[in-house]
């Protein structure tokens, strides 16, 4: 228990501590169970002992898959499932299998196979975090592995073309999201008021879909129609990860001020651009302070277009 534990995983963006579903699952579980984990964001999956990510290193022990890492943490007495009944433990396994079979293929597809998403978001993001010359090779390899996995597990007759496979996996993923939403209902977490392993897995799979801004977002749009799942992700992010745009730990007013400052800067930039393009707008009564008020009220909705404009 006293031995320091270090987790190596891919870094995060878009308000998430990590973009990688399995890394997120482990991080969330560590937060839920109170395990003291130092998180190292790595830039090269070949540096990890077995090439898998995430990897937990504690003294001389190296553990690599999420299920095994969680088992290890439980043995070290960091157990988030302590209050679950046997049946609830069984349900956890079943729902995790559902996530892996039905949601994971579509998640992999959105990140790594969908051409527009991969070329404009995933590949540049990973390439910028991996040192040259591996940045030329690793993203491509990860993409090929994802496609391989999808085709081997879901492809095959009667689905004969990639587009048929794609249609089927997105149908399955949307059904899975609906089932999760029905199961969650109005409670805060899947088994009452304290988060457990299942919550960690669901969060790990859903948060990347929810937060990452892709050009092709059919899964995200479907998820946004299920408000209880969105609320679930947001709750975990604010309560357990406390990340904001500025990246500082919030302390009420400070956060609001920092956010407001950043918003003001972005708004000013935007209004300068518009002024350059159209003289009429300069004469209109819409000047920054009023615009800021409007933005403040609709801060949630306005963030994404502003983020797109920021460098």
């Amino acid at each position, binding site marked *: 228990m006293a031995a320091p534990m270090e987790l190596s995983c891919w870094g995060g963006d878009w308000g998430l501590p990590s973009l990688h579903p399995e890394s997120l699952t482990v991080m969330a579980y560590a937060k839920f169970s109170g395990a003291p984990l130092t998180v190292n964001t790595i830039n090269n999956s070949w540096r990890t002992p077995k090439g898998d990510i995430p990897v937990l290193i504690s003294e001389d022990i190296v553990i690599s*898959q999420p299920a095994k890492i969680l088992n290890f943490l439980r043995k070290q007495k960091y157990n988030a499932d302590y209050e679950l009944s*046997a*049946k609830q*433990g*069984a*349900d956890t*396994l*079943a*729902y995790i*299998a*559902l996530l*892996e*079979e*039905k949601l994971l293929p579509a998640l992999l597809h959105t990140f790594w196979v969908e051409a527009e998403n991969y070329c404009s978001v995933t590949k540049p993001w990973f390439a910028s975090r991996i040192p040259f010359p591996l940045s030329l090779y690793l993203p491509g390899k990860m993409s090929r*592995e994802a496609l*391989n*996995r999808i085709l*081997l*597990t879901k492809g*095959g*007759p*009667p689905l004969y073309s990639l587009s048929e496979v794609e249609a089927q996996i997105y149908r399955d993923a949307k059904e899975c999201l609906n*089932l*999760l939403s*029905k*199961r969650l*209902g109005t409670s805060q977490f899947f088994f009452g008021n304290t988060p457990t392993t299942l919550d960690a897995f669901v969060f790990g799979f859903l948060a990347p879909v929810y937060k990452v801004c892709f050009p092709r977002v059919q899964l995200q749009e479907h998820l946004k129609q299920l408000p209880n799942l969105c609320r679930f992700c947001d709750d975990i992010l604010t309560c357990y990860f406390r990340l904001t745009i500025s990246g500082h730990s919030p302390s009420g007013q400070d956060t609001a001020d920092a956010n407001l400052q950043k918003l003001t800067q972005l708004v000013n930039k935007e209004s300068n651009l518009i002024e350059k393009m159209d003289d009429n707008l300069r004469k209109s009564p819409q000047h920054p302070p009023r615009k800021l008020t409007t933005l403040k009220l609709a801060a949630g909705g306005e963030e994404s277009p502003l983020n797109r404009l920021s460098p």
Partner: protein
Amino acid sequence: MWNEGCVLLMGCSAPFSLKAFLQMCNLPVRVVCRANAEYMSPSGKVPFIHVGNQVVSELGPIVQFVKAKGHSLSDGLDEVQKAEMKAYMELVNNMLLTAELYLQWCDDVTVEEITHPRYGSPYPWPLNRILAYQKQWEIRRKMKAIGWAGKSLEQVLEDVDQCCQALSQRLGTQPYFFNKQPTELDALVFGHLFTILTTQLTTDELSEKVKNYGNLTAFCRRIEQQYFEGHDKDNSGTAAPRSAKRSLLR
């Protein structure tokens, strides 16, 4: 008349799941065995059913087809229960099915002694060896893609144990998974457990794992008694000898 075509591969659980499901729906079915059943099936997978002039393969689509005809076992469940049923069905597919495939095709001893001879038996040499190796290569590729290639036999058996424990805990003391009425989940679980319990392999470890859970073996016996005993005489001559060999009640 519903005809079912299947290849009675050692360790193939789907025909039993399907037969249990159809019996539970009270639909009369005749089992017919063909060596080329895999090629007759529209999706290349067995089992498949042949009704009138329609052919539907694999358990999932067959369940949908039967539902469309007005027979469904899960109508009495509420939304949360249906979600749970689907989740457990995925658990069984994810763990038990993959473990069965692993044992059949990735464990060298079993492959040499049992699987290759069985799979290639309808064909003359060298076709039997070629087809067997082709299937083995295909299955091993899939195992590698989902991360099971690196697992040892002990790890696979541990996974099976975990899955059986979950099923046993979910079943508890009830007669079926959703209390009084059997559902698709019961048929699926029966198919897999029955196969594991009655298939002869090089080791008994897999069936021992299941036998550790008394309520699961009782569950299988109950379903076998209720749905299979009285129906044996309806089966065609070719199927009867095979199904008579497999029984939990001997």
